[in-house]
């Protein structure tokens, strides 16, 4: 009994000492750093964004704190709270989704820390933030418009397939709508025969594309809502003996969205007709400038990246602005 009492006394003394030694300190000095908090680095797009952001912060001599949540919304909230506690001068966040971004805005707003959403904006009117976002609709529409022009020049009728993203993601919805808007203008020669849901998942993309190609062997016009789905799409096209270069009469008119290294190589090797490119250098610059503005906006503000379309006719001029070109070279 005595031993037990002693142990308990030890335990209480230990915890009290730890708390007294350190407990409830006033907040330290502001770190002055910019907190970068990404949900994932699992695709080339996120990896490149993360790297370019860090490089641009270093170029401006801005200290940074970084965290990746590995797909866990709860962990991402913990990380954002930690950066707020460290009194970051601002936060640049790539959120898991538009719904779980909402509490991130609330926490940042309560602490009066500017928060910038990179590439995905929060759902609804959730507070004060800046969102840097690609103009998904316009870029996708212009890319598919270019593909349709190529089809028109080649002549004949076309059966189209589109690989859709996760339709809970506003980006995916914008890209789908851009695709459909462009096709509407060319419905005399292009007919959509397959809309393949992928949920941004490679396996689903492969299974869906393979099934659609089997059900519609005449598919000869394909748009992927993201370049990161290309490996699955290429595999499905190869299985159907449809992955051919532009110079081959059996070529399937191909388009994508993002501007990653694989898309750049496919353009170079003449497998890809057009790619909608997100201007990552602009998006990163705009994110940092929003943080540097040093105060939280009074209302949600969206900065649109108009992007551009890279295609066979302008690849050389586009190379410097296409982020994938840099990674393809590496």
């Amino acid at each position: 009994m005595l031993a037990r009492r002693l142990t308990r006394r030890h335990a209480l003394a230990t915890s009290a000492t730890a708390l007294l030694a350190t407990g409830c300190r006033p907040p330290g000095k502001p770190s002055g750093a910019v907190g970068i908090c990404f949900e994932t680095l699992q695709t080339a797009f996120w990896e490149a964004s993360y790297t370019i952001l860090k490089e641009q912060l270093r170029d401006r001599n801005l200290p940074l704190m970084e965290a990746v949540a590995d797909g866990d919304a709860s962990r991402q909230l913990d990380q954002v709270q930690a950066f707020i506690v460290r009194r970051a001068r601002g936060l640049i966040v790539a959120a898991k989704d538009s719904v779980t971004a909402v509490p991130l805005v609330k926490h940042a707003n309560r602490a009066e820390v500017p928060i910038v959403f990179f590439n995905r904006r929060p759902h609804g009117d959730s507070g004060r933030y800046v969102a840097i976002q690609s103009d998904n609709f316009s870029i996708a529409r212009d890319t598919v418009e270019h593909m349709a022009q190529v089809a028109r020049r080649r002549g004949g009728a076309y059966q189209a397939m589109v690989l859709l993203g996760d339709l809970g993601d506003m980006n995916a919805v914008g890209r789908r709508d851009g695709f459909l808007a462009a096709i509407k203008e060319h419905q005399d020669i292009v007919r959509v025969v397959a809309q393949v849901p992928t949920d941004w998942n490679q396996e689903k993309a492969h299974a869906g594309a393979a099934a659609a190609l089997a059900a519609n062997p005449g598919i000869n016009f394909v748009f992927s809502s993201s370049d990161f789905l290309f490996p699955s799409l290429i595999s499905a096209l190869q299985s159907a003996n449809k992955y051919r270069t532009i110079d081959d009469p059996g070529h399937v008119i191909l388009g994508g969205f993002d501007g990653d290294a694989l898309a750049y190589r496919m353009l170079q090797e003449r497998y890809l007709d057009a790619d909608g490119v997100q201007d990552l250098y602009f998006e990163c610059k705009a994110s940092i400038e929003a943080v540097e503005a040093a105060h939280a906006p009074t209302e949600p503000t969206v900065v649109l990246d108009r992007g551009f379309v890279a295609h066979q006719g302008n690849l050389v001029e586009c190379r410097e602005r296409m982020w994938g070109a840099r990674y393809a070279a590496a």
Partner: protein
Amino acid sequence: MKTPLANSLLIRATRSPWIGLYATAAYFALAALVTPEIASLANLQGLAVSLAPLMVLAAGQTLVIVSGGIDLSLTGVVAYASVLGAMTMTSESLPAGGSVIAGVVVVLTVGAIAGAANGVAVAWLGMPPFLTTLVTLMFFNGLAQWQTRSQPIGMLPEEFIGLSFSNIIGVPVALLLAAAATAVAHLWLRHALTGQRLYAVGQNRATARVSGLPVARTIFSAYVACGLLAGVATLLYMMRLEAGKPDLVSETVLLDAVAAAVIGGASLAGGQGSIGGAVLGAMFLTLIGNSLNLMGSLQIWHVLLVKGSVILIGVSISAWRNARLRRTVAA
């Protein structure tokens, strides 16, 4: 080289049931030297809100582990309960206040039903706990994805999500709710007859049966209680993340819940463990995550490596301590 005194203190500390507290206090003091912000009031409040759901999950897991089982379905139950709860709370056919109450009831009911399904399969059908709960994990994850088409459900009522920002005398309401749930679990395990039977069943099921204890009913009650506590944890997660969705929590939360229970003294062989220990284990793990986040310069793989190593050390000490205890009892 360790002195005999240091050696003796170390051994005594690892044998102590208060090891979770020692480890937490020591780690807290150490982390405060590196990142003083860890001891700020704002951080402690954030830490408490982050800790709340994990300590409830760990408490539920402890009940099942004490009975000699394990519940691997927790993240699936949280996913499905959150989806149904969010759908109820955002239903336009219910009045504002009523929808929150209905949502809370739905979440707790889903938790209890999931626990009951696990309990029936393990206690009466004799299925292995690990296989049963792995199947229900998949089942509830699948249901949640089917119900929502993988889309998150947000815009939960303000009177519900507002609680995650509320404090009573500086203590977050989320922590108070979690403390109440774990206190009930503690009282049930320590002082109720069924709770005491859990230890007996977990230590030796055959002996418990021969002694006339209702073994199946006791095991069943552990799984139902675990499911109910998973429901409480779901509410705390929903409150904090302001959503219900199939991936509300990641799979690593399951490992955290089991690790917290084991670090807190529960034996995976059954028959040992305490709610207080599980709470301390959860506190320790949350503190590690918090301190690594505060450093702000670590990559995710660093964080996972550090956390994984700490869990491994904690579980090894716990296993060693339990083995010693068993040898002492046998002698």
